[in-house]
């Protein structure tokens, strides 16, 4: 009963606010929003800052208590020591660059062509194939992990880059889907006009579709780069010889060998994060467009 009568009263009170009061409430609310965002930012950023400061600490500061947030002097030598210590990070870097570059080229060629076919060429099997492709996106990769390993082992490809690179030349369902969606938005008249001028399909694809689809291509290339650069599971399954290791394997090895050498570990980890961080800051919009197009962060 009390509640029943109270409610209209507060409602009226809310309406009777003076402009000054309303402004004050709005300001308080905005300050609250900023405060919450700043706290959240601290939670998200602090680990990165800790990474940077740790990488510059001396061995003693690294283990000090109470924790020392800033080192007394910057020990940049941690970077050189970690990088050219017992593990050949230069070869890891070279291997990672090689695998990532080849995979990106493979992804580009093998996704653009099918995407164009699904978007612009008619064939009876098209619908069935497209549904089949979407279906494979829902099946966990763990199911193919064992048969693929057996196949590559029988081919004698274990401890080589072939199992990591060759499949990248045969299409990635997610990327084909993303590109196909983008290709369908390009006006048919543009393509028809080119056809009437006698352009071949490859020429249409190269001269018209690709230039008009730069944002989508950039998205899949970014996803491909980050995915291959960070790729761990398959590398750990297929690569055996230390000299053939990639950066992620090298980092894991480092942490296994020097478990608490955190200053050097963070230094090396930061070096390997640099390409991804720089790309992220340059191409943030492209990442975001890719995520909103597919709803997936490309993994």
């Amino acid at each position, binding site marked *: 009963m009390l509640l029943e009568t109270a409610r209209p009263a*507060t*409602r009226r009170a809310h309406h009777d606010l003076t402009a000054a009061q309303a402004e004050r409430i709005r300001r308080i609310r*905005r300050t609250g*929003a900023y405060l919450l*965002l700043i706290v959240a*930012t601290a939670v*998200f*950023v602090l*680990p*990165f800052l*800790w990474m940077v400061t*740790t990488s510059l600490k001396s061995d003693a500061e*690294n283990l000090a*208590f*109470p*924790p020392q947030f800033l080192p007394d002097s910057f020990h940049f030598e941690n970077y050189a020591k970690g990088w050219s210590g017992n593990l050949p990070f230069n070869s890891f870097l070279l291997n990672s660059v090689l695998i990532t570059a080849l995979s990106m080229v493979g992804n580009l060629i*093998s996704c653009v*062509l*099918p995407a*164009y*076919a699904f978007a612009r*060429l*008619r*064939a*009876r*099997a098209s619908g069935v*194939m497209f549904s089949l492709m979407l279906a494979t996106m829902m*099946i*966990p990769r*763990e*199911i*193919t*992990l*064992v*048969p693929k390993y*057996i*196949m590559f*082992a029988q081919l004698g490809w274990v401890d080589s880059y072939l199992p990591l690179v060759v*499949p990248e030349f*045969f*299409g990635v*369902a997610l990327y084909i889907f993303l590109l196909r969606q983008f290709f369908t938005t390009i006006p048919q008249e543009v393509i028809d006009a080119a056809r009437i001028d006698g352009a071949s399909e490859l020429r249409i694809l190269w001269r018209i579709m690709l230039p008009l689809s730069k944002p989508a291509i950039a998205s899949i290339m970014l996803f491909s780069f980050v995915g291959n650069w960070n790729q*761990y*599971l398959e590398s*750990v399954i297929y690569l055996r010889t230390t000299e053939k290791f990639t950066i*992620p394997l090298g980092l*894991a090895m480092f*942490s296994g060998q020097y478990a*608490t050498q*955190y200053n050097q*570990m963070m230094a090396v*980890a930061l070096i*390997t994060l640099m390409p*991804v961080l720089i790309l*992220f800051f340059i191409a*943030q919009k492209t990442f975001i467009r890719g*995520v*909103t197009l597919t*709803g997936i*962060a490309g993994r």
Partner: protein
Amino acid sequence: MTAISLGRRRRPVSATRREARRFHLFVSPWVIGFVLFSGGPILASIVISFTKWSLLRPPEWVGLANYRKMFADAEFWNAVSNTFYYGIGSVALGVTFTLLLAILLNQPLRFQGLFRTVFYMPSVVAGVATALLWLNILHPDYGLINKLLAMVGITGPGWLGSTEWAMPALILMSVWGSGNTIIIYLAGLQGIPQTLYEAAEIDGAGWWRRFWSVTVPMMSPVIFFNVVTGFIASIQAYTLILIMTEGGPANSTMVLGLYIYQNAFVYFDMGYAAALSWAMFLIVIVVTLIQFGLARRWVHYEFK
């Protein structure tokens, strides 16, 4: 006359056929890839799951033995329950936390782009490097978190070294890396008509009421999407667990994906690993179907 009409009738047919031939040519990279690296292996996986195969000796047909073994395998059930623990924990925390952040970000504030960058960045750089960072932060003696706790007089838990705290630690880490869902939420929030909020405000609804009666129902399809894809992703997110705990201590972070990896590439029991991967598939399907079933109760679709 007849020749021309014949030609006319034939030309579209051959043009269609030429187009179909081009379609098959262009789509062939994916078709080959499908046969060799997904469709083929999927079929092979079914067959392998009925064998005992260590790769050192030829495979031996064992019928349903692997599946029978699975039902009696306590480690398998432990892995399943850990998978749900991790999945439910990381999705529940990640989905609500990022929704709140997205709502905050959707206010007309300054530095919006900067905040978005900050929240999104960890999910992009997630990999071995950030796993090592978290190993450092979570270290029981030298880690940032326990040092901070010790400064206010609290003895922090052993985190990754403790059977009780290892999983919560991994879940916290996954929330840190779930900022990509903020972008999907933001796209959804921008689709809510402002007039709904204005109408609610005229009716005297406070911010809490507007959140529950406007934002949540209008966002429910997006939340649903993030829950479904988030859970599937969590089942497959065992690479970081492999690096950080290898399933330990005492199997407390042994999730199903890791158990598959271990059986295949540590014990070389290919048949059992294949059978386990089908159990994982079944879990994905069942959970997704349940979520779709529940969705009817709470997901609100706007029909215009």
